[in-house]
């Protein structure tokens, strides 16, 4: 009898103690969970959808935003940039000094770093990588590389490794953007071991110094990245990132809805209202900063577009509200001119000119004395929101006296036609590739953008504009630079060879578990995955 009572009591005690432990654990877990949600969690795989993937990751000739996402994740230059503040941050260089005349830069390289293939990061390795395009004898040299800019190299007097941890750069003339230029892919440093091993094929076997490294690269399709445990700032939160190209927006949306994709910039804008209203699908929209100009380039060598009144008429004929609401699903802001609100020297005064006034457009055409209707061809990419924008603009222009023929092209054909200067009217965009206004104004530089969509070299103000752009680069004082860029904006509005349609505020489609998405650089296509983590 006594043993039975004992057994029952023991069982009861056991049950009570188990319950207590479970309650304690539940409390602990609840507390831990609450704590964990406030602090980044490590682990997981992020799936990213891109609109393309280039056949090479070589920083000299990559193509498309998919490749850019990969390169920005695996690469690192001397410095990095904060897109929100425009501030230059340490990268491979832990500190640097710039002489007061802006001609001499000395970078102190961190000690003990290694590339993703284990080779040591030294000043000598950095100099070799940066001078690759000037060294035909280098096994990794490729003639004609660096299509998208080359670190400002034309202005370099010399670049030397003073010792194992010091790089010195001397310029011919001051360049206010020199540090920021190193934050572009062309400024990233490639491992000398990879350059020796793979030579010209180094783009298929990229080894750099960024927070992630290549596990697998399938040209034209996808890249699988692993966290780099040797990254100087510490291993990033994610274990893996898969960046995959999809053929079109519809397939990206389908993959997003099916849960195969966690983050993308390239889903259809028309899905934004539905996703914003209904969060039950596990998705949300994070709105990016207005860092992308949507613009219409006018070929000023074509009659009667060489008449500034005709170009101004085009400007006033376009209904930008309709473009933003119907073409961009509200994901945009009314433009002013060549610079966006976040840019140094932004002048909002341009908004009084960049607005819809079809009556004024018709008056200008009458004053110009041109024969109506004016036949024009509007070229655009057969992708994303461009066809809708083209139809809206065609409708607007036809209403005031133009006769628009729509020229729908694939990405390659459009890029070729535009860069050959064969478009008449062309829809395009310019992103804030790095947080400095110089990058944006190059589109109206008559030397660097000769030919091109608007033929800036044919404008009567070409030399004056070029001089201003040059002084904007060589002037070091930010206030003085701001004044210069205000003048450039006014001149662009005056000549109207580029009509500004909207500042795009790109929607970033994100799965709920994805945390800490950067909205600044991502808006310009410069996705920074180092801060992103997944709620487990």
């Amino acid at each position: 009898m006594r043993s039975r009572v004992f057994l029952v009591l023991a069982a009861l005690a056991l049950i009570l103690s188990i319950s207590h432990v479970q309650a304690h654990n539940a409390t602990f877990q609840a507390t831990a969970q609450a704590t964990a949600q406030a602090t980044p969690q490590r682990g997981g795989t992020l799936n990213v959808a891109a609109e393309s993937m280039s056949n090479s990751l070589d920083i000299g000739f990559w193509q498309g935003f998919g490749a850019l996402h990969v390169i920005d994740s695996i690469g690192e230059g001397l410095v990095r940039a904060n897109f929100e503040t425009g501030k230059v941050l340490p990268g491979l260089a832990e500190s640097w000094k710039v002489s007061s005349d802006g001609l001499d830069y000395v970078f102190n390289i961190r000690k003990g770093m290694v590339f993703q293939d284990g080779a040591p990061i030294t000043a000598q390795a950095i100099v070799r990588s940066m001078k690759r395009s000037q060294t035909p004898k280098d096994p990794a040299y490729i003639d004609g590389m660096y299509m998208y800019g080359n670190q400002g190299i034309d202005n370099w007097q010399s670049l030397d490794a003073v010792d194992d941890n010091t790089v010195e750069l001397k310029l011919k003339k001051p360049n206010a953007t020199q540090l920021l230029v190193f934050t572009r892919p062309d400024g990233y440093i490639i491992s000398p071991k990879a350059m020796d091993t793979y030579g010209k094929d180094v783009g298929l076997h990229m080894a750099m110094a960024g927070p992630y490294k290549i596990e697998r690269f399938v040209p034209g399709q996808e890249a699988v990245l692993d966290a780099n445990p040797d990254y100087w700032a510490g291993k990033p939160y994610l274990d893996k990132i898969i960046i995959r190209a999809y053929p079109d927006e519809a397939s990206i949306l389908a993959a997003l809805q099916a849960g195969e994709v966690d983050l993308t910039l390239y889903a259809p804008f028309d899905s934004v209202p539905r996703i914003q209203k209904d969060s039950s699908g596990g998705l949300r929209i994070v709105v990016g900063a207005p860092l992308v100009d949507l613009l219409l380039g006018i070929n000023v060598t074509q009659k009667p577009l060489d008449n500034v009144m005709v170009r101004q008429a085009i400007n006033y004929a376009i209904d930008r509200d309709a473009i933003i609401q119907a073409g961009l699903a509200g994901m945009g802001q009314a433009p002013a001119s060549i610079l966006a609100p976040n840019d140094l020297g932004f002048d909002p005064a341009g908004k009084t000119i960049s607005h819809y006034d079809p009556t004024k457009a018709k008056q200008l055409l009458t004053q110009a004395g041109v024969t109506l209707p004016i036949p024009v061809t509007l070229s655009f990419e057969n992708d994303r929101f461009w066809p809708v924008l083209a139809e809206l603009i065609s409708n607007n222009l036809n209403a005031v006296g133009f006769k628009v023929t729509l020229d729908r092209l694939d990405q390659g054909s459009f890029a070729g036609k535009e860069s050959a200067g064969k478009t008449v009217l062309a829809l395009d965009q310019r992103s804030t590739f790095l947080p400095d206004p110089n990058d944006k104004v190059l589109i109206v530089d008559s030397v660097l953008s000769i030919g091109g969509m608007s033929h800036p070299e044919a404008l009567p103000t070409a030399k004056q504009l070029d001089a201003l752009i040059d002084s904007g680069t060589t002037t070091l004082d930010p206030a003085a630079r701001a004044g210069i860029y205000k003048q450039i904006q006014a001149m662009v509005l005056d000549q109207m060879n580029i009509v500004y349609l909207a500042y795009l505020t790109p929607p970033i489609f994100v799965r709920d578990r994805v945390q800490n998405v950067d909205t600044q650089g991502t808006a310009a296509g410069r996705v920074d995955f180092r801060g992103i983590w997944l709620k487990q």
Partner: protein
Amino acid sequence: MVPIVKDASAPLPVKQLPINSIPLVKRLSRLWRKYSLAVVGGVFFTIVLIVSVFAPTFAPYDPMTLDLKSRLAGPSAAHVFGTDNLGRDVLSRVIYGGRTVLSGAFAALAMSFAIGLSIGIIAGYKGGWLDNLFMRLMDILLSFPSVLLAILIVTSLGAGQTNVVIAIGIAQIPIFARLVRSIVLILVNQEYVAAARSLGARDRTIIFSHIFPNMIPPMLVQATAMLAIGIATLTALNFLGLGVETGTPDWGMMVADGQKLLFDAPHVAFFPGLCLVLTVLSVNFIGDGLRDHLDPRLRNQAG
């Protein structure tokens, strides 16, 4: 001689009854059982044709008018098929789209028919090196899948509806040419043709009076098949953006524009897609019915 008296009250066997003595309802019922799909197809296609030809009468709105306040509205009394991403009425665009598609498909058919017929007659009638030359050319064209061939031709000529029609027409020529040639080879050895020749009839007379009339039934059947393929190919090329100008009402382009709206406004792609499918089906049903009626072997089997 004893007269044979037929029992007037005894009914004659059904097969022996003259056709005009069978009640109309029964006749129609028999035809319906035999050709029901062809009839349905014929009626539907006729409606599509009439609506397309008289599009301005049937379309409730201008297919090009934008109404941005009514973007992506679902089907309603005001817009039976809803509106698209620029507020345009989808029903009106489907109606005008039928015009674009059918005019293009018929034009391609006419072109391939005329050229294929000519090539087939010359090759089959003349024979020899001409036959070899033409048939080898047709073999080269046939070695490509027709859609791929059409894409290659459009890429060479440049995008545009006219070039798409030419491309489809060229892709279809070999089919008509080979069919006509095979028929001509059979007919040219018939006795009546030999008789006509021996009486001094000229080649032109033989071809137009004796050979051509006998080609019509199989050519008609083939034409319906080619029309269906032409409609599908034309919309496929417009879907790819190789044909009509952006914004032009066209079923293929409307499906292309609507595919990224499938989760948000499925009606934009659904209705033009449905019209395309039903139209192609109806033409195929007509072709099947024609084949059943014109082919004596099939006609007797069904009798």
